[in-house]
């Protein structure tokens, strides 16, 4: 089965400045792929290249098997939902949705039927006669989506559709989009800078940085096995804690690290690095736990000591910032339950889930893999 979207070594430069530096990826039919990354990483540009609003400097774009690299946007089998919805203010909701069909020259009866159908799916039937300015943000967004659906494209393109909504609405709409995708099963490319949207909506995530792909994988893959430090820190909130350490030695299934607090052992295989090399140890906030001194004595190695500098209570959970003894860097964040009894300046001992630890070399690339199969 042909992939719905295929990018082959796509490059894009503006005025000599390269923004997309050779991207190749594929989107399978029915997949919802999310392009995510910090501002300026090129995700929107990439989306526009797929849409046809811009053409690549080099490389090829295929949609449903056809080469559309230089094709007109309306002839690519794509439909786009814009960040600002881009509704036509002088037309009713019904006309907005019907517009593309009118341009195609479909007979009126057919247009009306299709518009009614789409309005039904998105619960817009009551609003069909209204103008965009009489709609709420969420309603406008649904009209924008409706406008895309009615064209029955091969691929849906979403350009940060939730950024313009306030936080509470964002959550609601996210759920609606997820439901819609489940119902329609449409191939979608979704751009966002919000990794929560990425994690919750995506079948597959493409992490972009500075115009090239950092990693492609399912949300859990990216979470559990980030290919590099950038992905590790980008995915997951709060960010992963990264500690600097030195590689003391490695065996087939474990790695010994030299830290200011002594030696730490982590299960890890396939680590190819020299002894004495500087490495980065990654620990997610939920993989650090406070243990009593008694328990700490029992655990050999893998206990970090420090004192609490800040406690953030969110009700359902608590985040504590702990400055580690001897480590000359930012405090680590640990995640605790909402009832955690903690105060600043408190001395704590932290135990880690060593099997969930991550290791990166000084350049940021992941070293080795976790032992004993994937926890994905």
């Amino acid at each position: 089965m042909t992939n719905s979207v295929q990018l082959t070594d796509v490059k894009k430069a503006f005025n000599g400045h390269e923004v997309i530096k050779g991207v190749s990826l594929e989107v399978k039919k029915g997949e919802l792929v999310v392009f995510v990354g910090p501002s300026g990483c090129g995700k929107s540009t990439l989306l526009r290249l797929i849409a046809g609003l811009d053409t690549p400097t080099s490389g090829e774009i295929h949609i449903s098997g056809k080469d559309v690299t230089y094709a007109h946007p309306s002839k690519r089998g794509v439909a786009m939902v814009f960040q600002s919805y881009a509704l036509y203010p002088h037309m009713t909701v019904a006309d907005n949705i019907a517009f593309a069909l009118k341009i195609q020259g479909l007979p009126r009866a057919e247009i009306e039927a299709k518009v009614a159908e789409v309005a039904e799916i998105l619960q817009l039937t009551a609003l069909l006669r209204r103008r965009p300015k009489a709609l709420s943000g969420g309603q406008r967004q649904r009209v924008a989506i409706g406008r895309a659906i009615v064209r029955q494209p091969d691929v849906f393109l979403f350009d940060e559709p939730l950024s313009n909504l306030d936080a509470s609405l964002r959550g609601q709409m996210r759920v609606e989009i997820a439901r819609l995708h489940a119902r329609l099963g449409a191939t979608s490319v979704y751009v966002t800078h919000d990794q929560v949207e990425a994690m919750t909506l995506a079948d597959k995530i493409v992490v972009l940085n500075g115009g090239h792909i950092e990693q492609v994988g399912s949300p859990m893959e990216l979470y559990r096995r980030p290919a590099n430090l950038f992905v590790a820190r980008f995915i997951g909130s709060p960010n992963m804690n990264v500690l600097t350490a030195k590689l003391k030695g490695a065996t087939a299934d474990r790695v010994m690290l030299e830290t200011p607090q002594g030696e730490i052992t982590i299960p890890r295989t396939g680590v190819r690095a020299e002894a004495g090399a500087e490495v980065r140890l990654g620990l997610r906030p939920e993989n650090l736990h406070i243990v009593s001194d008694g328990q700490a004595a029992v655990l050999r190695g893998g206990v970090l000591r420090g004192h609490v500098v800040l406690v953030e209570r969110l009700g359902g959970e608590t985040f504590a910032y702990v400055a580690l003894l001897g480590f000359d860097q930012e405090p680590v964040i640990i995640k605790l339950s909402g009832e955690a009894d903690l105060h600043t300046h408190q001395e704590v001992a932290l135990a880690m889930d060593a099997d969930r630890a991550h290791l990166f070399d000084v350049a940021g690339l992941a070293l080795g893999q976790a032992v004993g199969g994937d926890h994905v």
Partner: protein
Amino acid sequence: MASSMSQASKSQAPEAGWRKHLPVINALLRYGVLILIGFLMLYPLLWMIGGSFKNNHEIFSTIGFIPKEPTLDGVVNGWKTSTEYSFATYLLNTFRIVIPKVIVTVISSVVVAYGFARFAIPGRKYLFALLMATVLLPKSVLLIPQYLMFREFGWLDTYLPLYIPQAFAVEGFFVFMIIQFMRSLPLEMEEAAVMDGCNSFQVLTLIVAPVILPAIIAVALFQFMWSMNDFLQPLIYLSSVEKYPVALALKMSIDVTEATSWNEILAMSSIAIAPSLILFFAAQKYFVDGITSGAVKG
């Protein structure tokens, strides 16, 4: 304790005495100035309209603009004009010039503005500079060659020289105004139209033009007003009286009716400005918005 507290409250007391009335004095002064000047400004117009209904003797004997002995003589005779054609002919002629001119101005301005606003035209910056230069160019320097050119075309004594140039977006001011409005539109809306299958012309006519309608109306109104007042152009191109617009007819009338029938002339003037007056009151908002967008947004 008590005394210091009362002292404190005294110093905090809001403007005591006459200062309290400052805002009111301010307002009164302003109103006073505005009413006085407003009255002086509008008086000539009132006098003109009022004079249309006076008899000739009264015009020159009383200042008041309300006729003591109203009469329709001035209006009736003024309408007939002392020429072979009635005012109706002249009004019709005026519209024969102004309406095509407005239509053609709007179309060409919108089209050219879209080119400037949304296309990567080679040398766009320089061409735009050229456009702005035409706004400031004194038209008097072009007068004679244009006349000779139209003479060569055989267009003398026709209406063509009066509106054909406008088909070519020669009014830089209007193009500039529309460009500003277009640039303020979100690009995404036009991109959505492109994705919906529109070519650039469809985007312009189906999406952009309707959305910037206020600007288009403003252009139409301004061009209408300016064209109604246009005198020099018809003066040099038209020689047949039957083709005269109101402006020329009016001038001709005061040459003809030398020392008599002022009320007729005032009546004719009143009728002449009536269309502009009506339109102005009906569409004030567009006038003000239009002229200010050109100045302030730029």
